[in-house]
């Protein structure tokens, strides 16, 4: 191609792009909030009310460590005025490049629109040494604290303070909605407390380390993980190991998520006579997990059913 032709081709491409770039952005004036997971976006929606336009990057059904990047994620981050992340490296693998390419200084780390919701949270399972021999380790500890019965209140407080910081004019609205959320939570916490008394000391097996916070908080004993190390699929030897532990310990319930390798989980359940309880690991991971309180309520209910506890009051 001659230089003249090359120049003409480049000019034509740039002119076409200029036309598209000139198209006005017709987005709404609400505070645009993006959460990495629905737990955060639904809390922002509840506390922010009509003042916010929320968006979650993950759907709620995926493996949180390997969410597939989609075009709408980049566009949402580019427009966001407040960005909420779980932290503890939960999203690190897929969010890093998105944030770089979003080119949005309002939500860059260190700016007022960036909220790392694990700040102030005391993580469990913090590795003593970092080596891939330990699997897909998170250097700062287990990031699934949204599944701790006390995780929701921590996240709600973070979301509330971030909203007030970014949009101080809306403080009265945010305070009011936050108080309403806490009242709704308090009612449910009474119910959860009673169920937790029944769950205390029960033995359980998990596929991944998602439910360790929950188990620890209510006093359940995690006797085995089907994954030999976080993120490492179980071998036939691992399946045999788990079966043996379950038989020795008398564990009769396995907690797993929809994304997990449930063929092997079901195989273990068949060999041990255990019940498999498939639980979401985030809001919107099941039809009934519409927000964080519903998620936590549903987890309590399903565990109570699995261990055949008396449920009072009846689940919604």
């Amino acid at each position, binding site marked *: 191609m001659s230089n003249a032709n090359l120049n003409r081709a*480049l000019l034509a491409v740039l002119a076409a792009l200029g036309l598209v770039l000139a198209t006005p952005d017709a987005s709404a004036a609400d505070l645009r909030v993006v959460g990495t997971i629905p737990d955060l976006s639904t809390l922002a929606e509840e506390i922010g009310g009509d003042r916010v336009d929320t968006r979650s990057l993950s759907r709620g059904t995926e493996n949180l460590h390997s969410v597939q990047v989609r075009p709408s994620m980049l*566009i949402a981050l580019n427009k966001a005025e407040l960005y909420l992340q779980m932290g503890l490296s939960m999203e690190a*693998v897929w969010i890093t490049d998105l944030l770089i390419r979003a080119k949005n200084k309002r939500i860059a780390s260190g700016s007022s629109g960036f909220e790392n919701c694990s700040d102030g949270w005391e993580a469990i399972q913090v590795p003593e040494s970092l080596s891939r021999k330990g699997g897909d380790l998170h250097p700062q500890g287990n990031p699934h604290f949204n599944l701790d019965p006390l995780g929701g209140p921590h996240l709600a407080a973070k979301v509330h303070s971030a909203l007030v910081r970014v949009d101080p004019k809306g403080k009265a609205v945010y305070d009011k909605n936050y108080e309403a959320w806490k009242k709704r939570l308090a009612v449910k916490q009474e119910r959860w407390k009673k169920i937790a008394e029944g769950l205390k000391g029960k033995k359980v097996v998990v596929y991944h380390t998602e439910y360790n916070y929950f188990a620890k908080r209510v006093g359940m004993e995690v006797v085995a993980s089907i994954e030999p190390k976080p993120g*490492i699929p179980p071998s036939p030897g691992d399946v045999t190991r788990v079966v043996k532990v379950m038989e020795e310990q008398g564990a009769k319930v396995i907690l797993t998520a929809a994304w997990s390798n449930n063929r092997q989980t079901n195989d273990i359940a068949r060999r041990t006579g255990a019940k498999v309880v498939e639980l979401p690991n985030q809001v919107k991971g099941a039809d009934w997990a519409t927000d964080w309180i519903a998620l936590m309520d549903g987890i309590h209910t399903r565990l109570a059913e699995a261990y055949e506890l008396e449920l009072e009051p009846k689940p919604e």
Partner: protein
Amino acid sequence: MNIKTIAPAALTSLVAFGAADSALAQRAQVVSPGSPAGTTLGQSTRFDSDFNPAVSLATDLVADWYGYDGDSEDGFDLGLRRVDFLVADWIDPNAFSWITVAYEEEEFGIEEGAIEYVGLPGNWSMRGGRFFVDFGKQMQAHIEQLRTVDRPLVLREYLGEELPGDGAQIDNWFGVGDYTLVRFSVGVFGDLAGESHGEDDEVGPELSPAERAVFGDLGYTGRLTGLTEIGENGTLQFGGSARFLSNFAFEVDGSEAGAQELDNAVYGLDLTYGWLSDTGTRSFTVGGEYLMFDGDIGADFDDNGTPGDGTDDTLTVLDDSVTGAYGFVDYGWSQFSSAGVQYSFAEEPDASKADLSELDLYYTRRLSDFLRLRFATTFGEVEGGEDYTRFAVQLTGFIGPHGHGLNW
């Protein structure tokens, strides 16, 4: 002014400058006025490792068996195909850098060494140095990162096994609505010749770029691509790419035959659709790319006259167009297992314009996020040449920090 006054002042100056700057070379960390500027290391000394960059490695082992329909010798080969050393970190809040050193065929080479500046306004970003050029969906990836053991045949033939360029590139993207984005890039390069690996036994003219070029004679790349979401689970991507190579020469070692002031271009159109289940455990991807290679696409060397006498050789440049394409279908039935088929064909960029094709069947097992095992079979057809069959086993390990970058 006496020496007793000057000496303490000079000493104080030396210490003060030494605290602010550090010498790049391994010498005493004292920089006096007029010395080459060092780098400021902030709150650490040059003996601290607190600000060391992230280091990662990829190790790629391939064992294969080739069987030929003709006289070529069948047989096995196995060994270390490649090791990539990657070093990356932020330089400051607006720029990051990465360097990839590849060990391949008993040699080390700097495959990438670039700085990307993201402090430009809007969605603009700029990179400079040596980096993989922005062409289609597959040329930006290192070979061990691909879905298949090797890059599709048509890309190898027209662009090279890998295509690092020495130059600069500017990028921008914008959203159209909430679910569609458009990205474009323009690159300008001093060296954009591409690399061919594993084919060093071929004897013939070698392409070499001009040592110095006027602006219009530099190498250029351009890419325009759009991505849009289809339903809850699908993403469709289309794109067009171009690579212009100007003012290059064909030269032959030990011969005076050659041709200068040549140019050629490669154009590509790509289309990819990806579907991912709600849980992210099942995936389906179908895609392809059509390429046209145009201009001075090759040269035939003839050792005329006295064999070995470089003064009477001839070199005939082929000024023509050839085309080719590849397409693939890939299905992942779990987060650990996937399989696919890929077909690629191309007209060979030489005087014969022979039809070449490869059919690849592959199964990939991810033993973990960091260890991957692949079994592959390739059926190759060469018009006027020897057809071949290849069975390959590939084991690839990744050590160190990792991330799932944007492949757009």
